[in-house]
């Protein structure tokens, strides 16, 4: 591994050496003895699927997360990064995927937030503004006023400010974690120009992007990660994009997906459980039409933030101003609030993206969480029928094999996988006919993932209609009967049966043509 890294950066001694970094979150292993070596004057691309450990690695490097094990050396000297300020003092500057901007402050304040120019002990507003203007000008940006509050800027402009903020700090090691995901091609070009200039001045740059063509264009070295481990490092151009994708995917999980189950036969040609016609919302969802038949699992794929989340929220009644038509079981419905998704015959359930804030009441017991959505069914005149609740909750906990210290303990004490089972169980108690799932296996261990896949199949066999949004391509392939790929708020491709392949999904997610079969 080290030998490979050394070959990748032959002449220059390494600026950064990370070795044997491990990090566990509860039972989930985010990093497992991973390393990273970066040289001065090189742009180092870090590659891997969602959940491969890239983001955790970067968080360790910027002092946001403290690793369980491993060493970090900068310029050959071991360093300890306890908090973000430590990393910044050492010249390690990160541009995060989740923006670290202060929305109420102006662009100039944000760019100068750390170590602003001072006069008489006070911030020199003029100098700070000049510095901000210089940083923005360097990125070729002219449409951002330094006095504009960041909250008023669109996402792409915020990302530029975030990059400018990093540049203004004169880093030795610059990390860009998906920092260009919302930028236009022209913006990306000027950002790349700056990155190249910085590289030529001797900076080390770590670059993370899901856009392969960007990696191709700018990286000098590449390191590939999978399942929290370092797979390989090589100089850019040594491997074809296809080879890199194979490395990222690996070939070790084909077997975890259960086969489709035969369920009770429904009518020969049932009306679709859900039919969506020309659905649009703000400028985030465009003209979306599709249908799901009972017993079908339909995948929802694409790069992060292409409208998947909004589509699920729209189908759950949580957005206002949605246009288009939604029909459940052949009948048009008006979904104006989540309460409106209670429909005769079962209704719609949403397993939301962030289980900790949107799915669960963490401090409350497993029992309280499980029965929460079905409280109305379990109550008479507003009084909870404890016997019925106990029976329903116990049955669900057994059915889903929820592992806990009893139903009265707080749900916060459960592992991520068991928490997710509670969220799903909560909805199953309402007997929904349509289940929307937003990336339900994110951050969940492999064993529980398998159980969830089996559960999804069982539900489908019982003639529920499932819409599964996943950032894990393998899941879309292994679990889904059909896959819809979103790009910029619109469905750009529908893949069916044997057409659901890694290559086709990745290609469609980047809005590229499919590989000939």
């Amino acid at each position, binding site marked *: 591994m080290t030998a490979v890294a050394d070959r990748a950066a032959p002449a220059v001694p390494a600026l950064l050496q990370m070795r044997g970094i491990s990090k566990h979150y509860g039972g989930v292993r985010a990093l497992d003895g991973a390393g990273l070596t970066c040289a001065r004057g090189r742009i180092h691309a870090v590659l891997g699927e969602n959940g491969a450990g890239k983001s955790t690695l970067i968080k360790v490097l910027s002092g946001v997360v403290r690793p369980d094990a491993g060493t970090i050396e900068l310029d050959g000297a071991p360093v300890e990064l306890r908090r973000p300020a430590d990393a910044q003092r050492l010249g390690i500057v990160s541009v995060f995927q989740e923006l670290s901007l202060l929305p109420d402050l102006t662009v100039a304040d944000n760019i100068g937030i750390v170590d602003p120019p001072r006069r008489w002990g006070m911030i020199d507003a003029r100098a700070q503004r000049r510095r901000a203007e210089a940083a923005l000008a360097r990125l070729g940006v002219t449409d951002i006023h330094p006095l504009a509050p960041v909250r008023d800027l669109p996402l792409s402009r915020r990302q530029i400010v975030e990059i400018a903020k990093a540049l203004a700090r004169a880093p030795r090691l610059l990390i860009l974690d998906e920092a260009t995901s919302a930028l236009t091609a022209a913006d990306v070009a000027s950002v790349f120009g700056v990155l190249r200039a910085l590289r030529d001045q001797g900076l080390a740059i770590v670059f993370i992007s899901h856009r392969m063509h960007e990696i191709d264009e700018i990286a000098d070295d590449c390191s590939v990660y999978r399942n929290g481990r370092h797979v390989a490092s090589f100089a850019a151009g040594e491997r074809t994009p296809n080879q890199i994708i194979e490395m990222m995917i690996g070939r070790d999980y084909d077997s975890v997906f259960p086969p489709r189950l035969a369920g009770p036969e429904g009518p020969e040609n049932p009306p679709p459980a859900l039919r969506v016609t020309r659905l649009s919302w703000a400028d985030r969802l465009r003209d979306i039409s599709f249908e799901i038949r009972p017993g079908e699992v339909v995948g929802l794929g694409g790069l992060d933030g292409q409208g998947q989340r909004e589509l699920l929220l729209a189908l*759950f009644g*949580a957005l206002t101003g949605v246009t288009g038509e939604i029909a459940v079981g052949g009948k048009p419905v008006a979904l104006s609030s*989540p*309460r409106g*998704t*209670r429909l005769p015959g079962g209704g719609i359930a*949403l397993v*939301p993206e962030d289980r900790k*804030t*949107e*799915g*669960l*009441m*963490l*401090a*409350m017991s497993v029992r*309280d969480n499980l029965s*929460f*959505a079905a*409280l*109305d069914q*379990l*109550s008479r005149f*507003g*009084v*909870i029928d*404890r016997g019925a609740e106990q029976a329903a909750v116990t049955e669900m906990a057994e059915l889903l094999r929820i592992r806990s210290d009893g139903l009265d303990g707080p749900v916060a004490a459960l592992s991520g996988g068991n928490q997710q089972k509670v969220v799903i169980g*909560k909805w199953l108690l309402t007997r929904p006919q349509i289940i929307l799932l937003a990336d339900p296996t994110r951050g969940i261990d492999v064993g529980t993932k398998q159980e969830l896949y089996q559960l999804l199949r069982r539900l489908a066999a019982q003639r529920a209609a499932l819409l599964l949004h996943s950032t894990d391509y393998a899941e879309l392939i292994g679990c889904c009967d059909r896959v819809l790929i979103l790009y910029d708020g619109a469905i750009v491709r529908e893949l069916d049966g044997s057409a659901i392949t890694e290559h086709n999904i990745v290609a469609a997610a980047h809005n590229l043509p499919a590989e000939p079969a």
Partner: protein
Amino acid sequence: MTATLRALGALFRRTDRAVLAAIGCNVVLLIAGALYDANFLSLDYLLQQLQVASFLGVIATGVLLVVLLGHIDLSIPWVVTLGGMMSTATAGHAGIAGSFAIPFAVACGAGFGLANGLGVAYLRVPSMIFTLATNTIAQGLMVVHTSGFAPQDHATPAMHLLAVERSILGIPNAVWVWAVIGGATVAMLRRTGFGRRIYAIGNGERAVYLSRGHVGRVVVACFALSGACSAFAGVLLAGYSTKAYQAMGDPYLLPAIAAVVLGGANILGGRGSYLGTVAGVILVTLLQSILSIVQMPEAGRQVIYGTVIIAMLLAYGRRPKGVT
């Protein structure tokens, strides 16, 4: 005997650490009081303390509901006064109105609470500032009310009966009233979907909204109940002191909030029990009483009062490290 012990043990394990701490502090206060003056443990004195505590207890009931949601109700002082004044004023009108004195006063309080709830739940104004404004309005109304015409300000016999008399078993009726309200609240919090939703909203509105819970309705109902509790406490206080007067609710806001928090409720919502609130109410009452018995000057009382609250919170009410 062993069965009782085992039941007690189970109760002990189930009960929140903060509630146990509050109960423990009560025991310590009782022992300390008894060491100073043996009369402190006399039945009569203790009943008298409970009677005083019951007024605070009724107010704290409403405070608990609102705090469990993660909100706060600063309109308590003048809604208490409003309750007292409306009941005495209604009683002043001859004829049928007199018998409606208590329900009318409570309804007025509930109306103010309803307004608070609507502002917080639907206008989404922070509860602290919205209830502050309604408090000022209640104050304004009462000032106008008392000055316009000279309303009758004396308590009715019914109010006197509720607040002062000891009709059953020699226990003050006010304590019975508190027990009934408390029992109803416990049943509501533990047995109904409404109670479950109160805790859930305090834990996170988003999860409740996405689980089809009625966020707005529950918030409005809790504020309305808080207003009703405050107004009813005002009725009792007017009965106790035989008349309603300006600013009679002012000394109750801070002790009520302190009692709820000392009883283990999280001021940010989602956690707290009625048992804890009862312990907190008695704790605050006993603390005030002991400080006055030992003839501690008011100055020392305030300092000790504040210091004890800080010390107890530092011991068991801290928020977890790293969470912001």
